[in-house]
């Protein structure tokens, strides 16, 4: 199957049934897959940080770097290609955290909170997620079926 690789601060969309979109090394970063079962079209975004306000210049240059601008952009892109918002299936992976009680290095938790706020504000819900913990993950979206798989170490599972 052709594999489309999404780098950090990037997103990709496909309507080709044979495509699998994959992103690697999600630590505190958040991977969000959005799929329309009617159009059989979907996309995957790999966001580094929670809020575009952290660096507005970068947000203009690379909106996918931030959860609030990147997930919005992915959804807008899919809607622009004819997907319907009521059909969208949204799944999220990542947001891992470091150990200990430090409050600054909690970007993973803030990424998750940013996604929750964005979805709530737009009346959207997560269909499934694997969030938190302390392991990096790889995530993929199969365009033909909408299946999202998660891999950490040698273990893989469907979400």
């Amino acid at each position: 199957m052709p594999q489309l690789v999404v780098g950090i601060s990037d997103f990709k969309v496909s309507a080709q049934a044979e495509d699998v979109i994959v992103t690697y090394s999600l630590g505190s970063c958040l991977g969000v897959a959005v799929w329309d079962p009617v159009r059989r079209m979907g996309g995957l975004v790999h966001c580094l940080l929670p809020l575009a306000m952290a660096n507005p210049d970068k947000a203009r240059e690379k909106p996918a770097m931030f959860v609030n601008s990147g997930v919005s952009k992915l959804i807008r892109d899919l809607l622009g290609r004819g997907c319907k918002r009521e059909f969208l299936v949204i799944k999220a992976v990542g947001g891992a955290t470091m150990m200990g009680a430090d409050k600054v290095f909690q970007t993973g938790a803030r990424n998750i909170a940013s996604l929750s706020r964005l979805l709530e504000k737009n009346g959207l819900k997560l269909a499934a997620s694997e969030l938190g913990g302390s392991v990096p993950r790889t995530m993929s979206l199969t365009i033909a079926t909408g299946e999202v798989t998660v891999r950490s170490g040698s273990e893989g599972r469907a979400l």
Partner: protein
Amino acid sequence: MSRRAAILAGLDNIPSLPTAACRTMQLLSDPGSGAKDIAAAVRVDPGLTADVLRLANTALFRGTNPVTSLKEAVVRLGIGRVARLAAALGLAPLARREIRGYGLPAGALLMQSVTAGLIAETLGRRLAPGACGPAYTAALLCLVGKIVLGTFLEIDADPILRLCQESDLPFHLAEREVLGIDHAEAGAELLARWGLPETIVGAVRHSLSPEEAQSPGPVLDLVHCGRTAATMIGLFCGLDGLRYAPSPAVSARLGLTPLILEAALAEAVDEALNLCESPSLVR
């Protein structure tokens, strides 16, 4: 001989970095050094000079005209950037190999090292400007102990990982339990043998445990933050994953807030990824 003693003895068999790379790193750490000193240090190594020029001519840095000399590279990129490139290029032959003991594919450790260096430096510009140069160098080198333990000494990480999971220990504390030494200390011992200044060696030694340093300072604090943030984002992580604990005391000393951290990450990670895509660095 204890496991720790055997590891320390094994350091003597590890090849040193090229002299020009070591010298550049020393100069980067010395506030009294200038552009001339750094250019002179790089120039003595034709291979390093060629690599710097090759990198200066990639799409990432090149202007309208090609850069044909080290002097032009310094004018075009600034001496700080040339020195940082030279340091990363100097480390590359050692750091871009696969590190089996830590589950790191070829290139991953180099990329994580460069990312840690650039985050430390970017945070330093905002929080401790005087410490930027040595913080970049020390953060660039702070993972060198993984090369030592994971490649040259071929440690078996399974018992370390098991102990981590069973006892909920940070990875480096489990390394100490199993090996008698953690990779930060092993790296520091190697850097001392290579003649790097104590500012760098000390910052690397305590980069995972800054609370153990007798006289912590901004270089150590920035290195701790650089390596912690580079680990946190998960890019190029090995089997140790995110199993490390950031120090709240370091964040407090630096005045680091989530917004400052995330603004720095937006800048530094982007630059690191661009740099790491350069064939001159990762080939």
